[in-house]
């Protein structure tokens, strides 16, 4: 690997970690309550910003580092309780998170961030900071005055502003393997003041059992100097998660500070709104009253990070994909073997068949396990919604509460990535159109605050996502009116409530009076449905006027494997997804009608189903002209179609292979697979095929090439061809 590759890798790793830290930062900021100083939360937020700043500086992203520095300064003031979180500071900090995200995208080759925007944010941060510095100056002078009267002898010897710190540093055994050397850390500390070091070797094993790569010594240090706790903590930044660290103040000053903190806390408590905040505050008071010990350990599970800390490793998706490919090959090999098993002689057949069955079982299990590796909790996707709801409800002037249920439900990674945008659109719709304004809600006898619930759960072989709102529900009158206006339905048509609801998925549909930048362009719902259908999923809506709506999305658990029905047209084998097949009928010629010389339709129990001649699409000669053929009735995007085939072959699990990898996308086909005999079969994309059929593409071709279609010969209504 050459140098540029290495650098690109490190670059990417940094950006990944930065993105994670930004998520932590954002989640923490959203949790901040006005006027409450939650030290744990503030420390978390500060640490996230600090990591970003440090990482950025190390890898040369200076502008990001500098920008984060300003955020960090402000956050530092907050966690030192010189500044209380306010909605203004929260808002600005969240806005800064957005700027940081944009700056990160810029360094990945994205759009450049305007310098003016960056500076505007820095100024806003500074503005808030100005108020603080003045406060700080007052507090410090007050402190120093008191310190001179209450100081101990030791302190008197040490000097008015000198601090005495006792540090307990207990590295985890693997610390040395991370490339960190305690000696370096102590040398850094020495620069801050007078340092005494005491090594505790009690845990060091006997010489026969010692592993020189591991560290079993822990240290007690004493540092005297004009040093703040933060400066000490900063020295241990790199090893934060690889050790246990305790920094204790041994002088009188901290105790004094804690008294002041207690007073501050009591004042805050009286100012706060009743309810949750007071409870938090009580806990904090106790915390503050104790000596200010800082224990830095592995991040607690309270962090909003969806990643479970224990026992997990990062694996590149490339490796997983390779593994999945191999398992796919195994499935194919096993189906090849099955064929041999069927063709073997009587004597060997039984034994062979048993072995092959066993292999089949093992392969299925292996396959399931490997598929599970690609599964990620839906929380990764849900994570963006608190912020979205927070911003949008502010923008729309509505009060909205977001609930999330079943965040641990696991979904295939690709599905997760592709369902994100549709979900965002649906939630925005619920926020914009579903939930009414606070006044309207009150007038309707509802609680001012509306609730949107995101629910995820497994059902059979599917994962189901639901967006539930307690808003006004779908306005059927408006929807019907708009549909008529756009010509989607005729005035005379009688539609059931459910059918009216389904109209929102039609292209170009939107009842929004004004197109806001949030929704209303009328391109949304049909695109959402298309995206979901592309994932082999379904989307549906249920609504009760005045009470709310439920949007249900159903997706398959895995995308790489398909339950397929093999069909033959001419000498070619195609695959149709079993899920999309409703039924298969043997064609009854008397039920076929020809319309305007072009299209054949089949009368199935009162419904007219268009017939697609797959032989036309595949540009193959029809098998047995006029003979009995089969019609496979499939459903794609709410429409039923009959695909005319020559023969139904077996059903099997089919591994989907990409056509686009080495070729390109082919309309009407979603991919290919390798059959038991090693040949390639194409997988039909039912909605795509239908679209091609409707656009008349090959119809015209088949007319020109004068291909004879069996039925038209017998049952032409308009005397054509």
């Amino acid at each position, binding site marked *: 690997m050459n140098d540029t590759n290495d650098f690109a890798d490190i670059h990417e790793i940094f950006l990944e970690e930065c993105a994670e830290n930004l998520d932590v930062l954002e989640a923490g900021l959203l949790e901040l309550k006005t006027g409450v100083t939650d030290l744990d939360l503030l420390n978390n937020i500060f640490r996230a910003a600090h990591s970003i700043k440090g990482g950025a500086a190390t890898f040369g992203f200076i502008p990001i580092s500098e920008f984060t520095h300003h955020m960090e300064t402000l956050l530092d003031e907050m966690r030192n309780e010189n500044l209380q979180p306010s909605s203004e500071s929260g808002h600005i900090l969240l806005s800064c998170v957005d700027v940081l995200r944009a700056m990160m995208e810029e360094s990945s080759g994205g759009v450049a961030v305007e310098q003016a925007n960056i500076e505007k944010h820095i100024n806003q941060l500074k503005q808030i900071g100005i108020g603080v510095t003045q406060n700080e100056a007052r507090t410090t002078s007050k402190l120093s005055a008191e310190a001179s009267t209450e100081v101990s002898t030791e302190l008197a010897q040490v000097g008015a502003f000198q601090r005495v710190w006792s540090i307990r540093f207990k590295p985890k055994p693997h610390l040395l393997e991370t490339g960190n050397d305690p000696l370096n850390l102590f040398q850094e500390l020495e620069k801050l003041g007078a340092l005494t070091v005491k090594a505790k070797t009690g845990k060091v094993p006997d010489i026969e059992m010692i592993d020189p790569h591991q560290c079993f010594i822990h240290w007690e240090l004493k540092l005297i100097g004009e040093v703040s706790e933060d400066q000490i903590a900063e020295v241990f930044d790199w090893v934060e998660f690889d050790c246990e660290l305790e920094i204790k103040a041994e002088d009188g000053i901290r105790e004094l500070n804690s008294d002041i903190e207690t007073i501050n806390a009591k004042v805050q408590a009286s100012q706060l709104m009743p309810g949750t905040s007071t409870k938090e505050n009580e806990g904090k008071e106790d915390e503050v009253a104790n000596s200010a010990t800082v224990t830095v350990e592995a991040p607690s599970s309270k962090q909003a990070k969806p990643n479970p800390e224990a026992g997990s490793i990062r694996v590149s998706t490339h490796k997983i994909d390779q593994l999945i490919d191999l398992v796919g090959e195994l499935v194919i090999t096993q189906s090849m073997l099955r064929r041999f098993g069927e063709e073997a002689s009587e004597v060997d057949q039984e034994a062979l068949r048993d072995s092959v069955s066993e292999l089949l079982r093992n392969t299925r299990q292996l396959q399931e396990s490997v598929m599970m590796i690609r599964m990620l909790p839906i929380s990764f996707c849900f994570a963006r919604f608190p912020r979205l709801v927070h911003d949008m409800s502010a923008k729309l002037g509505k009060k909205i509460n977001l609930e999330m249920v079943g965040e641990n439900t696991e979904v295939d990674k690709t599905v997760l990535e592709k369902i994100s945008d549709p979900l965002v659109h649906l939630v925005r719709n619920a926020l914009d159109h579903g939930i009414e304004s606070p006044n309207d809600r009150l007038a309707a006898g509802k609680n001012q605050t509306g609730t949107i619930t995101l629910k995820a759960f497994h059902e059979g072989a599917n994962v189901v996502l639901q967006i539930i709102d307690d808003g006004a529900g779908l306005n059927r009158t408006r929807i019907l009116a708009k549909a008529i206006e756009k010509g989607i339905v005729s005035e005379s048509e009688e539609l059931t409530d459910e059918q009216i609801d389904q109209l929102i998925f039609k292209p170009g549909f939107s009842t929004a009076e004004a197109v806001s930048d949030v929704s209303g362009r009328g391109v949304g719902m049909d695109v959402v449905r298309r995206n979901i259908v592309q994932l082999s999923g379904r989307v549906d809506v249920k609504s009760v006027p005045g009470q709310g709506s439920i949007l249900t999305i159903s997706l398959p658990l895995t995308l790489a494997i398909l339950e397929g029905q093999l069909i033959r047209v001419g000498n070619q084998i195609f695959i149709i997804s079993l899920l999309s097949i409703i039924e298969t009928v043997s064609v009854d010629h008397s039920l076929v009608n020809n319309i305007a010389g072009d299209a054949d339709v089949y009368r199935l129990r009162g419904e007219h189903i268009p017939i697609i001649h797959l032989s036309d699409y595949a540009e193959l000669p029809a098998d047995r002209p006029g003979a009995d053929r089969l019609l496979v009735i499939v459903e794609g995007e709410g429409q039923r179609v009959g695909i005319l085939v020559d023969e139904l072959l077996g059903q099997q699990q089919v591994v989907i292979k990409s056509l686009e990898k080495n070729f*390109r996308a082919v309309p*009407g086909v979603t991919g290919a697979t390798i059959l038991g005999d090693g040949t*390639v079969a194409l997988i039909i994309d039912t909605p795509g095929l239908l679209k091609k059929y409707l656009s008349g593409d090959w119809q015209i071709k088949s007319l020109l090439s004068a291909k004879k279609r069996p039925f038209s010969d017998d049952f032409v209504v308009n005397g054509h061809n």
Partner: protein
Amino acid sequence: MENALSQTLVDETQGNQQLTFILSGEEYGVDILQVQEVKSWTATTPIPGTPDYVLGVINLRGTIVPVIDLRVRFGADSVSFNNETVIIVVRVNCAVGNRTVGMVADAISEVYDLNSEDVKPPPDFGTTVSIHYVRSLVSMPNGMVILLDVDKLISESIFGVIDQQTDSIEVSHVDTTH
């Protein structure tokens, strides 16, 4: 077949080793560094809606690889395939990424190490294939070898549509939203 091997120097940095093949009586060359393998002819699965020169796809050890009939691509008539027919699998660089594609040729010829002096710019006319894909011409004792720019050739075979009359390339927008 005699070649100029003994008289020329190998210049590896310039990638001047060429694998040559016969097509409609002409000898063409491709940079050997782009050749992944050469295999005997196997039946392809045709893809609906593709130009005639796209024969279809094959299964190459688990990967789906498209196969292009170069005779048809270069405007000649297609012939039936015999046991000399080969599929040359090349790895090319398209605008959208790398692709592994097979090209059908009548037969494999040689591997030549070329000296940069032997390599001449393409003439204005005189070849059966569009000048667009010819990188250069090389004079060999047995005749002229036409060196192909496979990146361009394959790229446009997959994504582009050639206007045979004007020899201009029209890139089609493949509708991927289905």
